[in-house]
């Protein structure tokens, strides 16, 4: 296909790309730039039209205690969900890849949360967490624990959201690890066993390094999800009590669609975009050093 000096590949290439490019520009690149532009204007109403305000929205942002709180919550949410869901996904994959009795059933159980809509299962988790009549409290009562107001206590509410999110994510990540494990040559493990290596040793020194590309892919997904998964908040807490469980994207939604303050929502979105950009660059550097892609 390498026809030097021919114009054909350029034309073909761009023609093939055009439809996707139009949509990508319209719904990814343009809105990214528009967000930046929007963030330097004020909220407009019929009575007071929107006006250029420079960095005023960013100044408000720095003073906005709710913003700092949701940002910190988002960091905790990431710390809570990313490593846990990845570790559980690996564990699940190793289990259902090995000789486990009732393996198919177990795999099904692990994977099911992935295909259940978050908003629907959030109502079920609401039952688990609800004080007095909820499942956690019912079980707790059997063991003599006092009832706890899981979602009404600022110290526990975010972790309740984390647990539910890990539950939702781990099975999805497991599939990627399972596919990767099954593509490892079986001779590797056999050789390890012959040399008397323990399973843990084999996993740590042989399998885990070979799974590194999967781990990278999954962790990018997990990071993005930690900014993106806010569906459960709509049912479980609405970000409360006192923003203790609110996350950045949920706050953006509130500002834009409840307070109807689009410019300030754009300013918040800029923070989210910057966070994603920093992570992207960081991962790129990390990937370059540590991962040998095939």
């Amino acid at each position, binding site marked *: 296909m390498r026809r030097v000096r021919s114009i054909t590949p350029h034309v073909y290439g761009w023609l093939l790309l055009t439809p996707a490019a139009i949509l990508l520009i319209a719904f990814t690149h343009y809105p990214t730039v528009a967000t930046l532009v929007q963030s330097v204007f004020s909220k407009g109403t019929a009575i007071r039209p929107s006006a250029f305000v420079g960095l005023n929205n960013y100044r408000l942002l720095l003073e906005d205690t709710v913003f700092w709180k949701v940002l910190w919550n988002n960091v905790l949410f990431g710390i809570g969900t990313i490593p846990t869901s990845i570790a559980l996904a690996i564990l699940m994959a190793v289990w259902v890849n090995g000789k486990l009795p009732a393996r198919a059933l177990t795999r099904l159980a692990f994977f099911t949360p992935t295909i259940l809509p978050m908003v629907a299962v959030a109502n079920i988790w609401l039952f688990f967490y609800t004080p007095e009549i909820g499942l956690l409290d019912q079980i707790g009562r059997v063991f003599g624990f006092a009832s706890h107001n899981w979602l*009404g206590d600022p110290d526990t509410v975010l972790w309740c959201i984390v647990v539910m999110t890990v539950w939702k994510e781990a099975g999805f990540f497991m599939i990627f690890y399972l596919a990767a494990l099954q593509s490892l040559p079986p001779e590797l493990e056999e050789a390890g066993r012959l040399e008397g290596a323990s399973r843990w040793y084999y996993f740590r020194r042989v399998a885990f390094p070979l799974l590194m590309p999967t781990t990278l892919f999954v962790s990018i997904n997990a990071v993005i999800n930690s900014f993106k998964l806010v569906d459960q908040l709509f049912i479980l807490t*609405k970000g409360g*009590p*006192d*923003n203790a469980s609110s996350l950045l994207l949920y706050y953006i939604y509130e500002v834009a669609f409840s*307070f109807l303050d689009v410019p300030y929502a754009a300013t918040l979105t800029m923070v989210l975009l910057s966070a994603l950009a920093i992570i992207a660059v960081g991962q790129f550097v990390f990937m370059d050093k540590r991962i040998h892609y095939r």
Partner: protein
Amino acid sequence: MTWSIRTAFVGLAVAGALVLAPFSGAMAVELTMYYPVAVGGPLTKTVDGLVADFQKENPDIKVNAIYAGNYNDARIKALAALKSGQPAQLSVMFSIDIYELIEQDAIVAFDDIVTTDEDRAWLDKFFPSLMENGRTANKTWGIPFQRSTIVMYYNKDAFRDAGLDPNQPPATWDELVTMGQKLTKKQGNNVERWGVMIPSTGYPYWMFGALTMQNDQVLMNGDGNKTNFDAPATVEALSYWLDLGQKHSVMPSGTIEWGTLRQNFLEQKTAMMWHSTGNLTAVKKNAKFDFGVAMLPAKKRRGTPTGGGNFYIFKDSTDEEKQAALKLIKFLTQPERTAEWSIKTGYIGTRPDAYETPALLSYVKEFPPAAVARDQLEFATAELSTYQTGRVRKLLDDAIQAALTGSKSPKDALSGAQSEADRLLRSYR
């Protein structure tokens, strides 16, 4: 290749067009009314029925009712429709949206449409407390329709069990505490039944509006540009709410979930709950015990905020359409229709003379709780509503939750909210 792309796009466009159903018709006047209910519920049938009655009486007016989900959806949808030039002449929307709608220059005042003395008299036919959220700047912008208040549901069996008179629910804050203590049943560490629960998620500002009114304090002024969050009586009301859990132990500490509270009451995990009148039907249907409905207790006086939706007429419509919309609203708020509406839905009858119609008279007689909400209207006040209402409301919600979860004292939480609210509202004064 380009052809296949075009096919794909045409396919997409066709699929998209499938769901863009245009309205058409050739009537004299056509009205589009946005209505805040989730479609398919029993309420839509009632509204459809009332609208059909209206069209029978007025064959020259055609009404399209668009059911737009909850209050938030209805507002967003109606405003978006107006912006994009789609027809919309009237709507039922959240009564507290009034300032947002005025600021968006979306609605007209009823005073500017009514022409006859009879119409002007009609504006004064409603319960005054229900008009509070519809009036500002000396004009009437909203006509009450789908309205509710807070009442106290109580478990009469639990009252008997605790040795209390089941027909004497607490009438004062002190009684709420003392009776609550008798009603709270413990087994070891565990509380089997709480005395009272007041929900503090979802709509904390609404519940708080009741407590402050009972302490003879309103939360904002009538122009919607000043709040009274740090007034001593407001702080006192929040301290009382906090004390119910922390000091008197008649209520769980932390926040109490709005959505699951009814279930808690039905499971007899609490002897009393404060909740919207909107729960009456569900409680009546599912309670396995003898329950009563009472007015909220008093500190300095009785009090509750009103809630729910008002009729608004949009500015961007012809005079003819505005008159037709007015006609429709007047029709739907006639005493007989109001009575029918109230009986079918459980919402409050919005005008005193509706309660004198034979239908509502006999209904109240056989189901006394229906009268409690009406009698309480005498003590009712407006629901929290200001300019920037979403933000201001959230400030108060956060302050209440911060106090109830113990992360701030009531005084600190409320004065913080007040200074933020001042910052937001300064430019509206």
